[in-house]
């Protein structure tokens, strides 16, 4: 993407004002998307984003500038802007010798999506539309999207690091609307992986479409969700967002270092039910949150955060790790070259327990069974979090019964982690997510076995 000589000179330029650290993050991304709605291929879009972000750190101050001009003069201009933003002094000349690290590739790509005809991507969406519509006459509307991207990344810094990555992502999403006497209801499914086109040999996109249609139709018969605190069982592979919100964000070192997390100062303490072992793992093959290197050039890792209920570590990026005198954990991520990196999750999951998932439901006298969770959000300082339930049912006398209308669930992270009293042995990863923080969105994965929380507050309207 850029000659090594040029990046070396760019780093030297960025260090001219006496900075402690300088970094170039260059990116060249191409993407193709197909939007189907209302039975029509509305649009095929091709996009290209290419540029570099330059970060300069002096003391506790970070300066950042970016450019879409990857020529040496464009990079030098951005380097000077970032250096000026970080500092006022003149520190003289400092040069850096770069050593390339061997690229770690979690995935092997056999067929790059860019080599596949657009017609095949269009045809995929038409199959999805047909599968959802033919599932039931109640389906009145379907929208579907396909997206692929290939992002080549080069990260170089003044510690001598030189690393690159080449990340391919495929995404399919389907949203169905069903209409009946009770009004309209919606169903949603999606699939996102860091894989090549060959994966469509095994991914059943029509099955995803039928599931979106099924959800919408089931909810036509839904009754208002209950209101108040009760036991909640969450189906495997649908509720990882619970941990993403209940504790994931609170274990990000930037929140922790500012004392803006309920988990600050709790290392070594029991913060969750002893059933819970929580891992953030950027190395998992094919998952949506997987990366070879993070966006600061560090090889991603499998990091155990909570082990048997005990808090063992937080997640770290360059700045926060440096401040704490330790190694970063491969969690420095950014939305694009136009953004500063910060501490972010990758794939966050809870490991298997020992309960049979059917027994978990059977042991629940009354409560709510969540078959498909929606998005969520959290206040890391109080630990209060919410997430939506896209598909949920009542549990009565140990059996799953009537479907419920949509609503939010609310809980407090540390309390909910302690209240997990049954954990299944049926671990599965969930839907691809986009995690938003400080205005930046990055792809993340999550997963968990079927589990029960002793008490969560369901935000419905029925008493």
């Amino acid at each position, binding site marked *: 993407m850029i000659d090594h000589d040029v990046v070396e000179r760019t780093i030297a330029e960025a260090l001219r004002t006496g900075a402690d650290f300088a970094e170039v993050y260059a990116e060249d991304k191409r993407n193709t998307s197909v939007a189907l709605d*209302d039975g029509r291929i*509305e649009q*095929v879009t*091709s996009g290209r984003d290419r540029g570099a972000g330059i970060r300069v750190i002096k003391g506790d101050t970070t300066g950042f*500038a970016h450019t879409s001009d990857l020529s040496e003069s464009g990079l030098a201009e951005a380097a000077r802007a970032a250096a000026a933003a970080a500092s006022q002094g003149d520190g003289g000349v400092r040069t850096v010798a770069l050593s390339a690290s061997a690229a770690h590739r979690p995935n092997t790509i056999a067929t790059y999506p860019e080599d596949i005809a657009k017609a095949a991507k269009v045809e995929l969406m038409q199959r999805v539309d047909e599968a959802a519509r033919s599932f039931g006459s109640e389906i009145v509307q379907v929208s579907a999207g396909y997206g692929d991207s290939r992002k080549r990344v080069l990260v170089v810094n003044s510690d001598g690091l030189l690393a690159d990555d080449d990340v391919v992502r495929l995404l399919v999403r389907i949203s169905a609307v069903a209409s009946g006497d009770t009004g309209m209801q919606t169903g949603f499914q999606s699939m996102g992986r860091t894989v090549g086109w060959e994966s469509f040999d095994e991914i059943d996109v029509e099955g995803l479409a039928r599931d979106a249609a099924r959800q919408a139709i089931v909810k036509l018969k839904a009754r208002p969700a209950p209101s108040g605190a009760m036991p909640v069982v969450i189906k495997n592979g649908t509720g990882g967002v619970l941990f993403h919100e209940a504790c994931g964000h609170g274990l990000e070192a930037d929140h922790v270092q*500012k004392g803006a997390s309920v988990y600050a100062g709790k290392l070594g303490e029991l913060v969750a039910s002893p059933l819970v072992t929580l891992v953030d793992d950027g190395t998992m093959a094919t998952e949506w949150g997987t990366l070879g290197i993070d966006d600061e050039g560090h090889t991603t890792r499998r990091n155990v955060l909570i082990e048997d209920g005990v808090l063992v570590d937080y997640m770290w990026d360059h700045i926060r790790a440096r401040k704490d005198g330790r190694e970063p954990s491969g969690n420095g991520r950014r939305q694009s070259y136009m953004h500063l990196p910060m501490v972010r999750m990758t794939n966050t999951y809870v490991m298997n327990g020992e309960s049979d998932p059917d027994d978990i439901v059977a042991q629940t006298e009354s409560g709510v069974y969540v078959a498909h969770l929606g998005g969520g959000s959290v206040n890391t300082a109080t630990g209060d979090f*919410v997430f939506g339930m896209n598909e949920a049912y009542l549990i009565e006398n140990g059996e799953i019964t009537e479907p419920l209308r949509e*609503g939010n669930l609310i809980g407090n992270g540390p309390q909910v982690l302690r209240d997990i009293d049954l954990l299944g042995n049926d671990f599965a990863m969930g839907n691809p997510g986009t995690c938003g923080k400080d205005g930046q969105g990055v792809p993340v994965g999550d997963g968990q076995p079927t589990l029960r929380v002793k008490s969560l507050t369901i*935000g419905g309207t029925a008493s």
Partner: protein
Amino acid sequence: MTDLATGPTSDRADGAELLAIADRVVAQAKTGEQIEAFVSRGGDTEVRVYQGEVEHFVSAQAEGIGIRVIRDGRTGFAYAGTLQESAIAEVLAEARDNVEFGTADEWAGLAEPDGVAATDQTLWNDELADFPTDRKIELAMELERLSVAADSRLRIDEANYADAAGEAAVATTTGIRQWGRENGCYVSVSTLADDGDETQTGFGFSVGRTPEALDLARAAREGADRATRLLGATKPASQRTTVVLDPFVTAQFLSIIASTLNGEAVVKGRSLFKDRLGDEVAPSFVTLVDDPTNPLAYTATDVDGEGLAARRNPLIEGGVLRKFTHNSYSARRAGTVSTGNAVRGGFAGTPGVGALALSLVPGTRTQAELVADIDDGLLVQSVSGIHSGVNPISGDFSTGAAGLMIRNGAVAEPVREFTIASTLQRMLLDIAEVGGDIDWLPMRAAGVSLVVRDVTMSGS
């Protein structure tokens, strides 16, 4: 400190450079081909201060082009984050190639000039464009100092100054040719209030078209109030009650209501109000207007995302549903005319439909007067999970909330970790009063205190 150029790098304030790029693309249209070129360029600055030091200083510049091609009712689109000539040629070629895969749509087409004159707006200020870097840092530091001083229980998570400047040109083969530029700035603070083991959070902000318009004292005071008044908050008992939505919460509620009045959702059968024009959907004192021509609105503008004049559109008038918002596509399909509501997220996408500057016609009373009339109720200070718990197609409404109980006409103990729920249809009908305290927030909807009856609180 070296000053950084943060405004558009163009020396010309008439848009000639961007319009020339757009014109060159449009001029390449072949017979039977409609082309739209949208070209934009912008820059922003963000200063974050923590404990008296600059934590980061971001100086960002971006530019790009999006090209839409329509032929025989088929649409193709491509974009690139650069304005280099060779890249632009590639974007046009890609957009043309993508046309082949679109489904023919009899309503597809670009906007056409409709003779509606744009209302002049002052969207650009040289004073802000020339504002020096060291003054930006001082503003963020000053806000942090004021916030710390506001209350002894307060810590500051971050204090920010940010500004943005941008220019954009759009030209089409149908005769649209517009250029505009805009800049603005804001300060914001995230606060933490501690009491023993307990921590609560708050935020404060102030926005302006010039740095002089920023009210740092108000941002600091609100940041302190929001965090400290929740100290000691407990989880309330579940109940049905009357709620008073704080202006900031009402603005979020109005944005959701607007998404149900979106013409694209209507023509595609996804709006719960699709067959309800002329129906009473709210009490007679409720009038909801989308008016980007009002200079008081933070999102006031002269033209929409397709280059048509932005205009005043009453959506609900005297409680009766009067109008949906439309861009040229949804209007053509609905057999009506564009309401000037094309919205565009930048060069990387095609225009959708959306409200531009919503507001409820305000009543006369203050929030305190509204609260004084309520024996048992809840003042909702903040909501969370709007994106996960509200479905604008089914109408289900459920969000996390925090606020203060209302007892015998006065605000009482703080509460948190509960939800409020109803349906969008019911909430509109259950509006009991609109406050007189309209607040022009940095969102596409203005805030105002709003009293809504019969909302379910779910707690313990």
